[in-house]
């Protein structure tokens, strides 16, 4: 075992690609009630790559809109600013990582596919259990961002994690703990903090703070169950995939039944291919 040092984590996080300026700006105005939506819409439109992805998502099966959404301003008016902010964040993160030349090609696609499937399942689950859908989508998309950071930082060392996982038929998180001495959530938290993500999302992905008494416990349960559903639906294209063990407390808290789960399965499968294509994870 060659544990990862604190210095190395800092270094890995410093090497992170930067997010498009508009994404950072959207975080800053998260709690600002007097936010100038028109001005922000204009700024989103000016980043062409980002705007194309946002409009692609708005026009995909993700929303199932009947009429064509042709502009960011129109998208904001029909889908709401909160939804557009989530789409911009998703597109921004996808863009930042696609520009990352050092990521390991093979598992990079599988990781993104899993992240997208988790995001879609989280959004559908949140809707059913009365949690914020947009935040669940973003948290789902980023729940394994630490893994992407680890792979980008030291692909050779991460290959040892993969080998250990294969040899022991174990989940990646367990293999990470064995080989690197920590699991990816530690690095993920550092990465989101560096990107100035809102506390509500960082804490949802923080197992220490989201214990039974934490305010974000339910949101964290949504992500944990969405993660298992994403693996169960077998969407990441990895033949060795396995469903991680769910916490009974988190599962019970959502009080899911067949009807809700089947709708979540169906909604996730329905927009998966579209969203992957638009965010270029295919």
């Amino acid at each position: 075992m060659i544990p990862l040092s604190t210095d190395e984590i800092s270094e890995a996080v410093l090497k992170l690609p930067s997010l498009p300026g508009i994404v950072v700006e959207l975080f800053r105005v998260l709690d600002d009630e007097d936010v100038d939506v028109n001005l922000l819409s204009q700024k989103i439109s000016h980043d062409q790559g980002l705007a194309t992805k946002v409009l692609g998502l708005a026009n995909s099966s993700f929303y199932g809109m009947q009429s064509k959404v042709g502009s960011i301003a129109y998208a904001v008016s029909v889908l709401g600013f909160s939804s557009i902010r989530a789409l911009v964040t998703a597109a921004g993160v996808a863009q930042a990582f696609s520009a990352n030349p050092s990521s390991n090609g093979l598992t990079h696609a599988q990781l993104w596919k899993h992240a997208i499937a988790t995001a879609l399942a989280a959004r559908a689950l949140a809707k059913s259990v009365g949690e914020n859908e947009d935040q669940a989508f973003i948290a789902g998309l980023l729940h394994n961002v630490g893994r992407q950071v680890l792979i980008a930082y030291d692909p050779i060392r991460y290959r040892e994690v993969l080998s250990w996982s294969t040899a022991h038929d174990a989940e990646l998180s367990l293999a990470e703990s064995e080989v690197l001495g920590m699991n990816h959530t530690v690095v993920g938290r550092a990465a989101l903090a560096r990107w100035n993500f809102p506390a509500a999302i960082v804490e949802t992905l923080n197992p220490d703070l989201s214990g039974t008494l934490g305010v974000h416990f339910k949101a964290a349960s949504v992500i944990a169950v969405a993660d298992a559903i994403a693996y169960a639906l077998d969407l990441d294209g990895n033949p060795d995939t396995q469903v991680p063990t769910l916490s009974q407390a988190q599962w019970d808290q959502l009080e899911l039944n067949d009807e809700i789960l089947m709708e979540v399965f169906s909604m996730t499968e329905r927009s998966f291919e579209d969203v992957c294509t638009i965010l270029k994870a295919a």
Partner: protein
Amino acid sequence: MNDAKLVEEISLDKATSGMVLAKPILEKSGACLMPARAELTERSLHALKNWGVLRVTVVTSTDVDAVEPALGTITDQHKRIDALFRNSRQHDANRALMECLRRYRTREHHDPAVDR
């Protein structure tokens, strides 16, 4: 697993009777309107239009045997579910999720087409 050359998603107005569905048509609730492998007829096309279905995924290859592996049989899917839950099925929450997924996959295949 689906081979793009064997199956294709098309808009409903391009679908014609005689085409074979490569994926089931599901309602928003997840309920199956038509299962995979069902052949489209004038009547079912009309019904799908009334249900507001916009796109369908159909078999585009004439060689049905070549398409079969892409569709996957229900037995294959159940085997795959067993594999996915190989290390977690002994936990109650995982088993509940697995059993619901099994019912979901079975329904996709075996629900009677509404219009036949």
